């Protein structure tokens, strides 16, 4: 057995704890670095960068003629981000390393102040992520309201056309940046170690780095509007990109910044899953959410570098005047399209898969049944992740690139619906002959299946090249990906929040407000986006400020629904502020009677997560057994007995000796 195997390896200092080595002295809680110093350093960095950029590039002929100094913009933004990291303390350890220092031990921080610091506690980072992600989401949502407002009328305009395009682009980019981290940041950051029985993420500094670059990216992309916006949409197609106003620099730098955060997050998640699973957490016992994270992490780590490189080329085109994307100087307008979509398509699965993972966790709890087809579900996620690297040209079916490859890309794209179908198989199998409790997280999970069905099937139309001729680049596409990303990922995100917030914060959300939020969001989401399928089929291209008069009725219906959809988020915000901050009510330790490992630890979760490294005994889906198999031996009495209808049953630790475990090796043998 594996346990004996690892007993035999040389144990550094029997009975001792690992010495921290030459530790960097701990900074004072009051005088240390925090968000304020980070912002200050960012401003200083921005000023320096802008000054340097202006001083040597203002004389360039094209800068003098256009009055637009992209060199200064890029330098200012880059140095602002560097300053932000420096001021936050992100670079303390990397710099201390240069003189050979060991990392400081991760000590527990107390108080509200820790949420404003470069914290190494994955639970603090995750809560920072929750706020950051919501900020991102609501900013993008407000921009969406602006977009819908403009589309109230086909010919009279609320915004100028340039402003409108800038708003559309800003909305798309903000939302895409947000969506890459909406689950991997807050929810996975909080829960991944708990779900695999670990006390920490593998690289806490990398975890924190991903958060702070994420926030930096948010601020960088917001500077696009004062810089004049950018007219390319989130896809940033060159050569329009090369021609665009100064806001384009924010887009390019912002994607490099957010991209490095994405790479860091994916890297950390993958390494943690591979190495930090508790003894007994075999691959076949991994919660389905962790499987989805593994798939997502590999996509984040491997697809994002292409985006960052493409953005670097874009920056060089705009500042050093290279010609990567300019045909007349030996470049190619197709090059960006290829680089971007090679990242861009895995990106959309980065946004879909964690949602699948979350609903896969929620469903068994509220049906009191094991997850049906667990292996198929996990295989489906890996299959989607793998296939997503081979489909990017389906975005370019009408572009004139490689027409001979179209059947191939049609095939790979349609093949993705097979592993995606597994997700439905697991859900439908789990629902069969179950006992369904319509709690708020369950409603969100079911809504995902409803929305994603329409989103996924409309994707088949898009993958079919002949039909794609009509629907490509129209509102049909727009409705399609809002159904998959918002209808899938964002619903899963809120489902996950309602599900895990009692554990994360120790407080309960108000149920009535939560239900109002859900029903408003579900109804008006569909009312907003379903008409847009029709609008697209009737010939309205994306990102236009003028459209056919006959489509005004549908557009107005969509706009009004969008306003109501937005108001559902106001309900959420009030609920969140009220229940978590203003008038908190303590939550039970395991309010949903889940068998998941993360629910077996006390609330609030201790700094080290687990008093003892747990011994995993089973997967967390043993519902419907007279005496449910406990998920793990925690070494201490479990805080709650799992399984609502399961009657007695002794505490998990009492059972451990009696359970026969199959012979699979301990997980962390690498």
């Amino acid at each position, binding site marked *: 057995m594996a346990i004996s195997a690892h007993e035999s390896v040389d144990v550094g200092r029997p009975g001792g704890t690992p010495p921290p080595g030459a530790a960097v002295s701990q900074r004072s809680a009051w005088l240390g670095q925090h968000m304020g110093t980070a912002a200050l350093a960012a401003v200083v960095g921005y000023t320096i960068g802008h000054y340097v950029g202006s001083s040597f590039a203002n004389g360039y002929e094209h800068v003098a003629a256009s009055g637009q100094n992209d060199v200064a913009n890029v330098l200012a933004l880059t140095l602002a981000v560097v300053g932000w990291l420096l001021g936050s303390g992100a670079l303390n350890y990397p710099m201390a390393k240069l003189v050979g220092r060991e990392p400081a031990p991760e000590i527990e921080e107390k108080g509200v102040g820790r949420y404003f610091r470069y914290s190494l506690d994955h639970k603090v980072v995750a809560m920072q992520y929750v706020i950051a992600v919501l900020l991102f989401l609501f900013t993008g949502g407000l921009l969406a309201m602006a977009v819908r407002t403009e589309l109230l009328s086909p010919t009279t305009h609320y915004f100028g*056309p340039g402003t*409108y395009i800038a708003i559309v682009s800003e909305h798309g980019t903000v939302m895409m940046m947000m969506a890459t981290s909406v689950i991997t940041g807050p929810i996975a950051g909080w829960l991944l170690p708990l779900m695999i029985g670990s006390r920490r993420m593998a690289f806490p500094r990398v975890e924190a780095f991903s958060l702070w670059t994420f926030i930096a990216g948010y601020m960088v992309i917001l500077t696009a509007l004062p810089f004049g916006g950018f007219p390319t949409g989130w896809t940033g197609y060159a050569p329009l990109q090369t021609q665009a106003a100064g806001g384009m620099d924010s887009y390019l730098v912002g994607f490099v910044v957010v991209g490095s955060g994405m790479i860091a997050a994916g890297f950390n998640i993958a390494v943690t899953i591979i190495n930090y699973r508790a003894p007994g957490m075999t691959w076949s016992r991994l919660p389905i959410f962790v499987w989805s994270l593994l798939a997502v992490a590999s996509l984040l780590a491997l697809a994002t570098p292409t985006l960052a490189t493409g953005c670097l080329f874009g920056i060089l085109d705009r500042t050093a*005047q290279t010609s990567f994307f300019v045909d007349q100087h030996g470049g190619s307008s197709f090059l960006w399209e290829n680089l971007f979509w090679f990242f861009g398509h895995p990106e959309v699965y980065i946004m879909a898969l964690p949602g699948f993972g979350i609903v896969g966790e929620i469903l068994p709890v509220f049906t009191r049944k094991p997850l049906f087809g667990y292996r198929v579900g996990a295989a489906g996620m890996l299959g989607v992740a793998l296939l997503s690297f081979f489909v990017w040209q389906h975005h370019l079916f009408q572009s004139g690139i490689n*027409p001979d490859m179209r059947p191939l890309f049609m095939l790979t794209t349609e093949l993705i619906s097979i592993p995606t179908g597994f997700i*439905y198989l697991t859900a439908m199998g789990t629902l069969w002959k179950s006992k369904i409790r319509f709690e708020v997280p369950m409603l969100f999970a079911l809504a995902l299946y409803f929305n994603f069905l329409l989103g996924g*099937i409309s994707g088949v139309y898009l993958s079919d090249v002949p039909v794609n001729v009509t629907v490509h680049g129209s509102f049909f596409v727009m409705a399609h990906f809002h159904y998959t990303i918002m209808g899938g990922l964002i619903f899963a995100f809120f489902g996950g929040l309602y599900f895990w917030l009692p554990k994360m914060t120790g407080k309960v959300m108000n149920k009535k407000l939560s239900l109002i939020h859900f029903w408003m969001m579900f109804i008006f989401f569909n009312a907003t986006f379903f008409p847009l399928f029709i609008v697209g089929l009737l*010939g309205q291209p994306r990102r236009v400020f003028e459209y056919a008069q006959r489509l005004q009725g549908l557009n107005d219906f969509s706009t009004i629904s969008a306003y109501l959809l937005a108001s559902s988020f106001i309900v959420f915000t009030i609920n969140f502020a009220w229940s978590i901050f203003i008038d908190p009510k303590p939550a039970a330790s395991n309010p949903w009677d889940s068998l998941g490992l993360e629910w077996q630890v006390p609330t609030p979760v201790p700094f080290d997560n687990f008093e003892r490294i747990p011994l995993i005994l089973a997967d967390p889906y043993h519902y419907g057994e007279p005496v449910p198999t406990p998920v793990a031996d925690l070494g201490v009495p479990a805080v709650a007995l799992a399984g609502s209808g399961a009657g007695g049953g002794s505490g998990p630790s009492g059972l451990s000796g009696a359970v026969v475990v199959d012979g699979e090796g301990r997980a962390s043998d690498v």
Partner: protein
Amino acid sequence: MSRQHASTANGASEPRHARRVVAMWLVASAIVDPLFYFVAGPHMPPGDMTSSAAGAQFDFNVLTMAALPVIVGVWIYGAYTLLTWRAGRGGPDPVMTPTSRSNIRIQTAWIGTTTVVVLSAFVFGTVELVVPAGAGGGEGPQPIWTPTSKTVLPVQVIGQQWKFTYRYPTYGGFESDKLVIPNDTTIAFHVTSLDVIHDFWAYQLGVKADANPGTDNVAFTTTRAVGKVTVRCDELCGIWHGAMYNYGEVVPKAQFQQWATSTEASLASATKLLPPFAWSYTPSANGAGGSFYPDNVDAFSKTEVYGAGAVSAKTAASKSS
């Protein structure tokens, strides 16, 4: 196995859930599919004005015929399970059975069915792409799926920020703001751009092709009926992307002939100023009013140039001001 626990709630024997669901699904599918095909199908976009539009409409309808049973199936299944086994009904707790974790037969059947559906969709899509010569989509400079018709009318579509113009190489290469094409004719649209990427979307024609600078993107279609055509730009190209549309017409052959020859004559003096017709052009990457790239950067290739390179006077002007 599961049935032995199921009858505890009300004493009655467990209904045959699976049969009920399947029966409901079959009935619903048998209703919605023909209903869609015969009632809505003929009106589905983009109509049937051309071969590619009709093809897109047919393909859309076929895909919908396949999709509707899937959607209806999931809905019926979902509604049935949610209503039948909701906790509020006070039914028995589910009990772990050998099949509640996995069921090889169901899983195999599911995978098999989805694979067959997906592969059929692929085969269908490929046939519908290849046989009608690219189905109206842009096929790049060297189309591999070409129409069988011997007489093809080439029309060059030139996108620029922010309008489309149309050149007719077989009529002296005149350039028009309006797209006019003859009925019952196979048209080859040669789509190109003078600056950034645009996309030529002739909605009623079922034609869509990106306009890339320096690239000739060819799309074929065969007109079948006369009528108005809306052309929109379908790739974000800057501030006036939303206003980059115009209208065209499919007219009877004789009328087209008359229009083309008279326009050729009336535009003759303007046509002389145009660069000689070419399948793609290499516009200067620099604008009229001063350069993006310095002027001494390498000369361009020998393909036809829209816009001359002489910008020095203009540069001087903008400098002096």
